[in-house]
């Protein structure tokens, strides 16, 4: 029993928690931007898969790591454009289009993987991002190690949260994005185009989701394999609700969630196979559902979420 408790005070546990949180942070911020602009993006799971492959494949074909990140982001933005074209000006069901984009992005990814690497049996590896300890700060016990001895992509995840938070609440553009999700008619009255704002938000958000996927193949692991996203995208949608559509709260949610995930992996080793391992693997999904139930009653959805906007209509 003591053992299970001591895990919480080891640096390696918190390092793992922050690492597990990183892809979730990117994708959660991406989904949050889309939803704040009024568009539910269920393409997230497939866009993460596409980003994971695009980034990894760029590096595998001889590209630079940061080029890989850029290619992943561009791939995500392209799928975002597809999603936004169908849901914003054409006003199609965001549920159906989102699932469609997930199916399409996933299948194109798998098709391309099989086409590019027809014969491989074990997934080929790349040289991923290496940890980059920040001098002095990383010497702080536990907390310093956990936060400041990560790979550059993890730092970028935290920077993303700050930029999204600042951008949404402190810039005219952010105000326009939030208004597009709350009261699109008011945005139009300002002489701004709701359509353009929503399309832009979905593209930017999808780019972040794709970088979240790329984190898995380029920082957490070093190869791409099928079904590696494994529901992370859906979990991020739950995290956005849990975080009440606020970047800071969503960040806390992602870290809390990742800490539970890192904890269950270590608890598995402590319990030594008495409890079926599948029960531990279920925990993240069960936890996401519980989180949704907890906040559902007081959740304040963006008022125009999933409501298509037609200019001049009331």
């Amino acid at each position: 029993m003591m053992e299970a408790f001591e895990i919480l005070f080891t640096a390696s546990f918190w390092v793992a928690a922050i690492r597990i949180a990183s892809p979730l942070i990117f994708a959660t911020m991406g989904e949050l931007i889309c939803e704040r602009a009024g568009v539910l993006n269920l393409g997230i799971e497939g866009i993460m898969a596409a980003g994971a492959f695009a980034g990894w494949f760029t590096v595998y074909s001889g590209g630079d790591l940061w080029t890989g990140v850029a290619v992943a982001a561009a791939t995500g933005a392209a799928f975002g454009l597809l999603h936004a074209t169908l849901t914003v000006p054409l006003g199609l069901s965001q549920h159906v289009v989102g699932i469609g984009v997930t199916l399409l992005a996933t299948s194109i990814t798998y098709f391309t993987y099989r086409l590019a690497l027809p014969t491989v049996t074990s997934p080929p590896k790349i040289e991923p991002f290496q940890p980059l300890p920040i001098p002095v700060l990383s010497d702080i016990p536990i907390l310093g190690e956990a936060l400041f001895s990560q790979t550059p992509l993890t730092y970028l995840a935290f920077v993303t949260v700050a930029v999204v938070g600042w951008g949404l609440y402190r810039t005219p553009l952010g105000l326009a994005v939030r208004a597009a999700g709350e009261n699109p008619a008011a945005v139009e009255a300002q002489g701004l185009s709701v359509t353009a704002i929503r399309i832009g938000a979905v593209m930017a958000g999808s780019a972040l989701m794709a970088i979240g996927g790329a984190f898995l193949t380029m920082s957490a692991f070093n190869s791409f394999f099928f079904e590696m996203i494994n529901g992370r995208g859906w979990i991020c949608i739950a995290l956005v609700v849990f975080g009440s559509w606020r970047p800071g709260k969503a960040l806390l949610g992602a870290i809390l969630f990742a800490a539970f995930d890192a904890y269950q992996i270590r608890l598995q080793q402590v319990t030594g196979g008495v409890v079926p391992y599948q029960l531990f693997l279920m925990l993240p999904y069960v936890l996401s559902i519980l989180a949704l139930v907890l906040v559902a009653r007081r959740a304040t959805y963006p008022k125009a979420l999933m409501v298509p906007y037609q200019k001049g209509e009331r």
Partner: protein
Amino acid sequence: MRLEPRPAPGMATLVLLPLGAILVTVLAASLLVLAAGASPLSVFGLVLKGAAGTQFALLETLTRATPLIFTGLAIAVAFRAKLWNIGAEAQLYAGAVATVVLGTGALPLPAPILVPLLMIAAVSAGALLLLGPAILKTRFGVDEVVTTLLLNFIMLLFVSMLLEGVLKDPMGLGWPQSQKLIAEARLPRIITGKRLHYGFVVAVFSAIVVWIIMKKTALGYEMRAVGHNPTAARFAGIPVNGVLLKTAILSGGLAALAGFSEVAGLKGNLTLDLSPGFGYSGIVVAMLAMLNPLGVVAAAIFVAGIFVGADAMSRTAGVPSYIANVMVATALLTMVTAIMLTRFKVRWR
């Protein structure tokens, strides 16, 4: 640009737009085939031949269509009431688990009693699994999209746990698979020696029953009313939450029948790869059928044909069979666009 409702779409619109959707799908797939260094014409020829060119191919397509009819119906009834059940995959496995638990010797009954009993058990399991998210939605306002999606992952892990634990076949040489069903629990084959089984007949029959429920009963009317406008339905005195729960029971039960029919009709036992995403493909089937239960049968055969044909094609032409998944996903997106365009006209300024 803006959208204007078409007062009454002409026949030409109703025919040409879906045809256009299929054309766009084929064109998109052709690009991928060209990227793979093959000729689209010969590849699509092979797909067609593999799907319907021989008696074997045709029977194989109908066999593959069977679970898709069930999951397609499950999605069609749920989406009609705007209950976003994306968890047909989990409900399918729930049905399969119920079938295996009771059908491997626990109930030594003759086939005419055992088979219907297994179907009832499967339907109950699937219905219960979807009732959870439905109650969370009606009681606590939890969005059912995320909960049903997450349940897919939980259910697969649960099945994996069962197959490595209590349901593990002791004679399975260590493979995570269940015991075979007893002979009385199996659905017979329609043609001896071929894989097509009576699950297909049950599926088509279910489609007719669901069509009658949707078109001719008060429940069907209420489901459509709730899907169309829940607030208006409430004012009209329709118990919206009750209707949603009934929809969940119907939808979850139908999806579970896919699991029952795959185990009892085709595979004989439960493994972790029982469904290559039938629950997700069911969404495509339902949308292609425009949520019409009878249309689901045709759409399921069409989608199954693409999968079976692409499998056969990839063995000879060397184009990855994932092209089928790409085509099916593209068809979903182009078709919902086409359906929208039959009802609205795009005006550029």
